[in-house]
């Protein structure tokens, strides 16, 4: 990962350490601020904040702590926001099952990952049992 100084990151790039439920509120807030810069509509901002909330909660719930990395991205003329949720927790044993929706190992609604996938445009999970989980999602501004 490239090291980025604070000043450079101000506008395009925010890292939020996730280890308590107040961090979850901060991450949501940071994502909303950043996405606003990319010109997302208020409705899209809410989707983005909701996705961040679900991913950050999974970090706390399953891995105790981790990080949310928010980044403005560009693809040709398209602008978007990328959210990377990374932890070094237990990992997901069966990713297909975890994405199916309605499946939960914790008594949750199990809507989180399936819902986030639905809300966002790109969705990718990398997870190794015992090593951790990294969920990368992107929402493009249409």
């Amino acid at each position, binding site marked *: 990962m490239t090291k980025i100084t604070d000043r450079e990151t101000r506008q395009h790039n925010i890292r939020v350490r996730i280890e308590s*439920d*107040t961090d*979850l*509120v901060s991450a*949501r*807030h940071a994502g*909303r601020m950043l996405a606003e810069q990319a010109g997302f509509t*208020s*409705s899209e*901002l*809410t*989707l983005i*904040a*909701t996705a961040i*909330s*679900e991913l950050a*909660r999974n970090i706390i719930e399953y891995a105790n702590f981790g990080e949310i990395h928010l980044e403005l991205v560009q693809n040709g003329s398209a602008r978007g926001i990328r959210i990377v949720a990374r932890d070094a927790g237990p990992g997901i044993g069966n990713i297909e099952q975890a994405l199916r*929706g309605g499946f939960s190992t914790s008594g*949750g*609604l199990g*809507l*989180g990952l*399936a*819902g*986030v996938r*639905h*809300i966002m445009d790109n969705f990718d999970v990398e997870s190794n049992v015992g090593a951790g989980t990294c969920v990368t999602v992107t929402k493009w501004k249409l």
Partner: protein
Amino acid sequence: MAVPILKQSNYLIATIQSALTDQDFVQLRDALVDKVGRFRSRGVIVDVTAIDVLDSFASRTLRDLAYMIRLRGAHTVIVGIQPDVAFAMVQLGITLADVSTALDLEEGLAFLDDVGAET
């Protein structure tokens, strides 16, 4: 961030004023379930107008709150879910299907009066 709970005749009105943590939601649930007993309230309104995200945890806690209060003999109505929030909830797969909802506080009060919670 404690949520103020107002007692108005037979009703309790909880007005959420800013983003809540998960723990805040759980505390709100427990406080309302407790107060329904202490004040012998017949109806509960949770006003979420100020809330900009109702994710799966918040929604589940609101649903549990409504169920628990029902088991204690009172009605709950969630009011003030904003259009953007409603959109995100539905996209996420959350419908709060068996929880009563109303547009705003006024409609919520009317709903409680209607279901006969006022007497």
